[in-house]
């Protein structure tokens, strides 16, 4: 039997569809309501509540914690002060990405990290190799449930329950209470919108869930499943491990592996020239940059709306728009005299109802990655492969000011 998260009894009550799937061995709902769109839009229109408890969670304490994380993580942990969080990744020694996750310094010298896959043994191994004795690394995955509260009204909900919302800036973390339960709240999320993630002790899970639902009632709070989350994260330009890239750990050949640069995470290396950090993979990452050895880049693609419409209409069928999200690989070709001239692929595809455009996250050879570059994306039309024009575009596709804005006591009004 799969495990259940600390919120499961509530989730079971609200899951109208009766459909469950597995996420890291836990039961989760892909969607709770018959209307996936309603869940999807709650993230952009009101406020959504998502259970992300199946994430792996690790804690690092002791004076060597920071030393270890500096060695492992791509971003400089020195800048992750108490009360701050970082979205980061870590690589193997050949500079290939192992995982991505959010690290935060919750108390002085105490760090928490989320990961999509198990990595305790690996971290302990690095610590041992480095001879670090003053660091305790623990798997705290089942010590916390995590709820993600995302959407323009998230601020109003969190404000009703805690006193800290006004001061919580983007990627800030704070320890506080919700209905008397100790919680850790970060202004983070996987939606590209205004939002918070809340770490909750399992014993408090029901109380906090009920409090959030209660406080959100007037703001149209909507529990959402994993499908709506995956849809909105494409708009936010956020990569999904297992879909947009794979961990180097289980790769067979290097073509399955990707570097931070290839994934578009070069920004995590800001200031690299001026620091002497010795993180795992640094040599390879630097060499890649120096020699221009990136094999491809991860970019946003926007499909030409007119061509998309025409391609289906010409075949006599309706262009698919409603709730179209796909994680199947779609081939991309160069436009030119040669037909089917393979160039790369899209790993996530969404017909964005919000943006009214089909969009994709794609891997393309570097020469095709300038904004505005034109390529052909292969789509099946009545089972026949057809090409539609798509253009490289800025990611994130959707990036509202409220995501990062400081919110005063006046509220989250745009």
């Amino acid at each position: 039997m799969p495990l259940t998260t600390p919120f499961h009894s509530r989730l079971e009550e609200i899951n109208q569809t009766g459909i469950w799937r597995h996420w890291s061995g836990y039961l989760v709902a892909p969607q709770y309501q018959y209307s996936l769109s309603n869940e999807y839009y709650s993230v952009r229109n009101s406020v959504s509540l998502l259970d992300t408890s199946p994430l792996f969670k690790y804690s690092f304490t002791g004076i060597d914690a920071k030393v270890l994380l500096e060695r492992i993580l791509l971003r400089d942990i020195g800048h992750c002060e108490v009360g701050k969080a970082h979205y980061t990744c870590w690589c193997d020694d050949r500079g290939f990405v192992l995982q991505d996750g959010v690290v935060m310094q919750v108390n002085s010298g105490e760090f928490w990290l989320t990961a999509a896959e198990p990595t305790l043994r690996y971290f302990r191994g690095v610590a041992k190799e480095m001879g670090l004795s003053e660091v305790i690394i623990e798997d705290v995955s089942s010590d916390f449930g995590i709820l993600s509260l995302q959407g323009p009204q998230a601020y109003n909900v969190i404000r009703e329950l805690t006193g800290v919302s006004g001061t919580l800036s983007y990627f800030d973390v704070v320890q506080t209470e919700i209905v008397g339960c100790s919680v850790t709240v970060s202004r983070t999320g996987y939606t590209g919108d205004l939002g918070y993630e809340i770490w909750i002790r399992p014993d408090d899970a029901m109380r906090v869930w009920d409090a959030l639902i209660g406080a959100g009632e007037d703001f149209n709070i909507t529990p959402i499943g994993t499908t709506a989350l995956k849809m909105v994260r494409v708009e936010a330009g956020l990569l999904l491990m297992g879909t947009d890239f794979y961990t180097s750990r289980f790769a067979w050949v290097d073509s399955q592996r990707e570097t931070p640069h290839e994934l578009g995470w070069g920004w995590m290396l800001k200031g690299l020239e001026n620091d002497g950090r010795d993180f795992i993979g640094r040599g390879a990452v630097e060499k890649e940059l120096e020699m221009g050895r990136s094999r491809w880049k991860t970019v946003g693609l926007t499909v030409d709306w007119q061509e998309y419409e025409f391609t289906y209409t010409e075949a006599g069928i309706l262009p698919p728009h409603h709730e179209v999200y796909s994680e199947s690989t779609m081939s991309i070709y160069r436009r030119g005299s040669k037909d089917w001239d393979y160039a790369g692929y899209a790993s996530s595809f969404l017909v964005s109802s919000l943006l009214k455009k089909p969009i994709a996250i794609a891997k393309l050879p570097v020469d095709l990655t300038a904004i505005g570059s034109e390529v052909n994306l292969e789509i099946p039309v009545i089972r026949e492969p057809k090409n539609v024009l798509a253009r490289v575009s800025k990611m994130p596709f959707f990036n509202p000011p409220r995501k990062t804005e400081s919110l005063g006591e006046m509220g989250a009004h745009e």
Partner: protein
Amino acid sequence: MNRSESYDVIVVGGGHNGLVNAAYLAKSGLKTIVLERRYLVGGAAITEELIPGFKFTTFSYAISLLRPEIVQELDLVKHGFMVLPMVNTFQPGYHGEHLILGSDPDVNYHEIARHSIEDAEAAQDLDHLISRMARAIKPWMDRIPPNRLSSDPVEVNALNELKVYLEDLDPEVLDLIEKCTTCSIAEILEGYFETDLIKAMYASSGIIGSRCGPRDRESGLVWLFHKLGEYDGLPGSWGFHKGGNGGFTQALARSVEDFGGKVRTNAGVDKVLYEDGKVSGVLLQDGSILKANVVVSALDPRQTFTRLVEPGDLPKDLVDCIENLKFQGTAAKVNFALSSIPTFPGLEGREEIYKGFTNIGPSIDYLQEAFEDCENGKFSRRPFLDCCIQSTIDPEMSPPGNHIMSCFVMYAPYHLKQSDWKSERENLADTVESTLTEFFPGFSDLVLHREIVTPQDIEEIVGLSEGNIFAGELFKSQLFLDRPAPGWNQYRTPIEGYYQCGSGTHPGGCVSGGPGRLAAQQILSDKGL
């Protein structure tokens, strides 16, 4: 006298079609201004905060027929365009009987099957056929229709093309189109359903905003028209714009300005100015003059041809035709600020049932009787109501905990026999309230405030003649090749440089933007742009 301002294009009327038209023209580089008589643009697509925290969609309240091309071409998402899904359609019946149709087709099948297994299957067939029909008609919604009186080879060819297109249509689709143009919606549905509640739910689209009952043959075409829209690519579905339909027109206004156009409110136009059959500008109600070689009227045909210009200056057959147009508004609105959500017996606590349309009109007979009152010059004693509690979808529409309910009311004839709207408006609202209370016990206790909009109010406030919400009935004689008049269905008028782009032109009413877009195409092509 002040030196008058001059523009390439003046659009008279800041309704959604006027704004769409102006945005396209501004986008093409023309110096464009929209003149709106009221303090805000939007025409009948506005949202007003009449009491603090409660946002009223005073007139139009949902979106479906909007041409998706407009959203793309005017880059509306950038300006705040956001249409939220309507999750359910709720059709209450008597004695707790009801239908709730939602987003899962299989669940809907079983919901209808509670009433009739065969009806459930018939609904699948009909829905699919409606989608195919809508797709078949779409190309003709989105192009300038042929002029059937012209002998120009281009027009003759276009008419021929239409003929061939129809001949080549899937026979099933063609059959439904033919039925819709010749039969009442009640007759059409007779061929599909046995259950009255289901027939009534489908039939309501056949009477919306029109002076016809479900057993009148005009209702077939009115029904077809309302099925031509989509939500998020789903044919026939409706959505709700963030912030109400006023949110949509505000986004349009931003688009106009973003393309370099101007939007001026409190600028009512008295007359369109022309000399020797050529337009030269407009005279505002404040006496000032704006000059332009192109003036576009976004008002309805009666205003376009008989108020803004001198009808005596126009061909007599055209003026006759315009004077014979049927407006005869029959719809009213009563919008409510509610202290909390209404309760339907047996569905207590099910707030999600209101996330969409709630249709009060449980049988064909109910709808027909409502119409008969109208034929007798009275508003319906038991009206058909199309309600929408928008705050269940968009929390920003009402203060936390409270709700806002838009309530479309039929029938409410523009001309009342033996009374007038001044004396009847409160009675109308009372009737609506008591009708709602019949289905939702205790409804009246929830009412904090009500906004009453009679057909006369629609005429006075929005400027739509006789309060017809489509700027002219959606009847066969007033659509497509004949909208608003044969020979004048291509957005031009007999005065050179004077154009029309309101809902009174093809493709017609509803928040579609089609007239504004197609008129812009015509203007640009006439200018050689």
